[in-house]
């Protein structure tokens, strides 16, 4: 009989917040490098969201260890083929990038902006890594539901990007930046990401085949269909498509995307627990 690792709520939160951190940083860096000067608010919010989330992520991972004081043992080894090993390294490196980017986002001086853009473009790599490696990590275990579909990492990445964008949109809304150019662009990018995530999810379920049973027929099936597919993906996408000019509805859809992102991590992690 296979055993489950008893990764529970702390890991659910880690997967969720790590995805947001990676996605928000990526969105910020793209806004910084490819957007206009008016998109700076998006970039700044993204960088400033990523930093504290990465710190929380690190704390969650350490707290979940059997012997938290030994967390540094992860950094005494480097196994490039092992998601857990490079994941620990990547979290640390990404932390440095978010720190530098967040710091530089306070300076409007041209050299600072130029540096921030360069750092952001490299940091995207680590942000994406943080958002997706958790999926690759659990899909390389002996547990069939986690390991039979090849798209867990791709799915987590799409969800991470989408929830990162939703977080930025929500903060824009709360700080009175809704309706502006940056808002419209973030919402447009999130529409693409949600649509893509739906496609990846469908393909993922097909690839899983009978191994999807814990998800589709288990005790969390209702949460999966209701919380993720309907509330977390279909409804926000529909809201975005029919009413994306209404700021309040845009904010509602952002909240729903975040709910969906959390439900995704929750059902994936918790449905294998015995």
């Amino acid at each position, binding site marked *: 009989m296979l055993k489950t690792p008893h990764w529970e709520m702390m890991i659910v939160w880690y997967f969720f917040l790590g995805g947001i951190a990676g996605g928000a940083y990526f969105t910020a860096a793209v806004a910084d490098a490819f957007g206009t000067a008016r998109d700076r608010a998006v970039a700044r919010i993204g960088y400033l969201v990523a930093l504290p989330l990465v710190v929380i992520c690190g704390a969650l991972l350490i707290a979940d260890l059997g012997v938290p004081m030994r967390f540094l043992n992860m950094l005494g080894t480097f196994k490039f083929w092992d998601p857990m090993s490079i994941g620990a390294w990547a979290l640390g490196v990404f932390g440095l990038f978010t720190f530098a980017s967040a710091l530089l986002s306070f300076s409007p001086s041209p050299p600072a902006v130029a540096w921030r853009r360069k750092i952001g473009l490299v940091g995207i790599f680590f942000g994406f890594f943080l958002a997706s490696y958790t999926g690759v990590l659990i899909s390389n275990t002996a547990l069939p539901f986690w390991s039979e579909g090849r798209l867990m990492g791709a799915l987590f*990445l799409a969800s991470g990007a989408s929830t990162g964008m939703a977080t930025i949109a929500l903060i824009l809304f709360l700080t009175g930046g809704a309706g502006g150019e940056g808002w419209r662009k973030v919402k447009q990018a999130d529409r693409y990401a949600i649509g893509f995530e739906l496609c990846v999810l469908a393909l993922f379920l097909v690839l899983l085949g009978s191994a999807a049973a814990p998800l589709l027929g288990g005790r969390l099936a209702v949460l999966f269909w209701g919380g993720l597919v309907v509330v977390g993906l279909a409804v926000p996408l529909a809201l975005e498509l029919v009413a994306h000019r209404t700021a309040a509805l845009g904010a509602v859809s952002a909240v729903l995307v975040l709910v969906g992102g959390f439900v995704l991590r929750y059902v994936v992690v918790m449905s294998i627990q015995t």
Partner: protein
Amino acid sequence: MARTLAMFTDTSLCIGCRACQVACKQWNELGAEAPEWTGTYQNHAHFTDQTFRLVRFVEEPKPSGDLAWLLMSDVCKHCAQAGCLEACPTGAIYRTEFGTVDINQDVCNGCRYCVASCPFGVVHFDDGSGTARKCTFCNDRIHNGLGPACAKACPTDSIQFGFRDELVAKAGKRVETLKGMGFKEAQLYGADTGGFLGGLNAFFLLLSKPSTYNLPEHPRLPQRNVVVDSLLSIGSALVVGLGAIVSFRSRGKGDGDA
């Protein structure tokens, strides 16, 4: 590397006395646990952090309507390609010069990735120590010229310890003998180094198909898909990235860029 050592568990000789289970507990100073009622003499249902050897009592319905009573002393397989070892991010899980797999309890930080990565469900998390634990192949004993405690205690030689190549040759002959005696399904599990997981350094002789003993027919290395999964994630990143770039370049062109 020294010559590979192995344990050969010949289930056809097991009488279910559980001396191996007790000897393992005593030598490794494993704690007592509350008994678990499994419906058979088997106790516990699975390996735990305090049970590294476990005698399984299996009842197999026969075509005649009778039950075959199959006994099997199960243990960590010490795989040549070990999922737990590949998964370990601290280097706590290591391969000894004898080819066995051990967990350094002073290095393990209890991340539990190995627990999910064992194709046989052997590794178990110990809440007390906060570390992962499993059979050590009596690492202290084999480094002092002694065989594992379970093999030493076995009164019927169902558990044999020795050099792997010699044990495999012996096991092959034993299968032939058993087949000649009418045990048509007698087979080795994990003896072939060209077979699954590069061969098991604790391999078995079974009297029925592996699934009867709740063993996977074709265990696979969990880490076999890291490259594919990573490439698909990169593909996902490119699509999402492209969507964002298109979005941020789409409007506001010519607004000037400070």
